[in-house]
């Protein structure tokens, strides 16, 4: 067990290392980072000063050392536009993104799990087909377009919901749905297939042979066991949601980290862009590691198998 956890942590550190190398490498390969670090229209003297200040005139290996050392201190650089440290900016926006992701996740589970269960006990019937359509659309519609159409219907024509910004729970409904539909579709698909697998198992057959009513078999014996993989996926998806909401946050002017990334791109505020991507990647790598370790703690087959 210790060896397994040690190896997982090793892989995680390796992934983080590769992540930092990738970001470091791409910034330098695609052009002179000095031009990204100064504001547009800077003079040659400014460029040289910036190169010297950030050590860009040093050998690549030394540069990487400096880059890693500042990362280790939690220093993601200074935003040009806001003139504050990137980390402070990031942390001030993060709660909004988490708030949106949690509500979108709750919505996706409330829609995905019951409809998945319903589809699994009514295979090939109306609810199953309706569920398939819902899933297909959820996986095929770009979330930002869903957002725009929601604004058009509920803000412009019906005037029921505010079109952008944050503040009241009403502001959350449309962005949460636009973000959550895709995930609701994924959760529904997994609930359905997981339920079908459990419904075909021996212990469910036994429960039926005992003469338990259908509703009890589904609710008590099948549902609880089918829920495990869905909740695992939901846990990972929650972290992904925090990081992929960029387009939805832009559509609804939601002040989260996705919008921060967009602002960074629009204002050519490069340290912000780099910081948000580094933090997002690191967050997902770490969550994957935690899930792997938890799985091994629960299920000995995984740690012994590898």
């Amino acid at each position: 067990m210790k060896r397994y956890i040690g190896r997982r942590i090793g892989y995680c550190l390796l992934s983080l290392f590769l992540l930092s190398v990738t970001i470091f490498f791409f910034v330098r390969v695609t052009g002179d980072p000095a031009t990204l670090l100064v504001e547009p229209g800077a003079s040659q003297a400014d460029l040289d000063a910036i190169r010297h200040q950030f050590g860009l005139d040093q050998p690549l290996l030394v540069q990487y050392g400096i880059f890693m050392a500042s990362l280790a201190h939690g220093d993601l650089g200074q935003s040009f536009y806001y003139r504050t440290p990137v980390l402070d900016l990031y942390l001030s926006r993060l709660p909004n993104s988490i708030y949106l992701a949690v509500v979108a996740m709750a919505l996706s589970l409330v829609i995905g799990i019951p409809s998945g269960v319903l589809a699994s006990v009514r295979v090939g019937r109306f609810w199953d087909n309706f569920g398939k359509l819902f899933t297909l659309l959820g996986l095929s519609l770009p979330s930002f377009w869903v957002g725009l159409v929601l604004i058009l219907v509920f803000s412009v024509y019906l005037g029921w919901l505010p079109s952008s910004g944050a503040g009241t729970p009403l502001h959350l409904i449309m962005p949460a749905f636009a973000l959550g539909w895709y995930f609701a579709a994924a959760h529904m698909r997994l609930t359905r297939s997981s339920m079908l697998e459990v419904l075909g198992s021996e212990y469910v057959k036994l429960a039926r042979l005992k003469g338990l009513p259908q509703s009890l078999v589904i609710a008590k014996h099948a549902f609880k066991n089918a829920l495990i993989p869905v909740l695992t996926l939901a846990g990972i998806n929650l972290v992904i949601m925090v990081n992929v909401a960029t387009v939805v946050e832009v559509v609804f002017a939601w002040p989260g980290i996705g919008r921060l990334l967009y602002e960074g791109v629009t204002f050519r505020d490069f340290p912000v862009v780099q910081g948000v991507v580094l933090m997002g990647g690191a967050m997902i790598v770490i969550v994957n590691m935690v899930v792997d370790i938890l799985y091994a703690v629960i299920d000995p087959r995984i740690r012994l198998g590898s």
Partner: protein
Amino acid sequence: MAIQTEVLVLPARSPSRLASLRRSDFPLIPALILCAIALVAIFANVLAPHNPEIGSLTARFRPPFWQAGGSTKYLLGTDQLGRDVLSRLIFGARISMVVGLTAVMFAGVLGTTLGIISGYLGGWVDQVIMRITDTWLALPALMFAIFLAAIAGPSLWNIVLILGITYWTRYARVIRGEVLSLKEREFVRLAIVAGCSKWTIMLRHILPNVINTAIVLGTLELGVVIIAEASLSFLGVGVPPPEPAWGLMLSDGKQGLMVGRWWLTVFPGCCIMLMVLSANLLGDWLRVKLDPQLRQL
């Protein structure tokens, strides 16, 4: 007593191709939609009634022809610069097709090559490639694409490259798995005995056997890539204006949304939806048809 049997003469039916296709649950409508979009993309010059990049400022924000104020000159209305929406949609099909197909192919070549090398050579090469793949998979793809697009600057071919290097991982993972089982098969062992070099075996014996899988993955990836391109263009780091990309049109249309200029948002979105939906349906069918092993994906 002889038994009289009635001879049934069945009318000779020529099995029409179309009918047999319909029976075999072939997704006919999605395939037709994709073909239609491809044709529109190819013949955009002929089909488009107006120039997609030049508008007339006197004809700004015209609604579609059936609404008050609309005219049949601009069937689906005009945008903030007076450009014809229909013509822009037609030329947008070309961009979506070109970006979608080339990015998927680029990702496919990259991922398949790495998958074959990783699976066949094994050892430290496999370890290195798979660790890189894992790291790549861990990155939020769209966020990474935005990052790359922000440093590379907006251009059509940059987007193709960026989407290619963002979405190759799935090919590498799946194809490596296939190669692991292929390399234990007789024909590969015989090729080794016959003295073929590693590269010959990978190119002549392994590659033809994993092409089917790569095609299925490519079809499934097409929808993802098209949405990614639209998202990047929407955020202003994708296809640069004044090119008529659907994502860019949505981004322009966003401003007119609050005053009810719905046609600037609804039409480009419907185009993206039709294309992605068709690609996904076709991909699902191909997956089941060509490769039973992939049904679980």
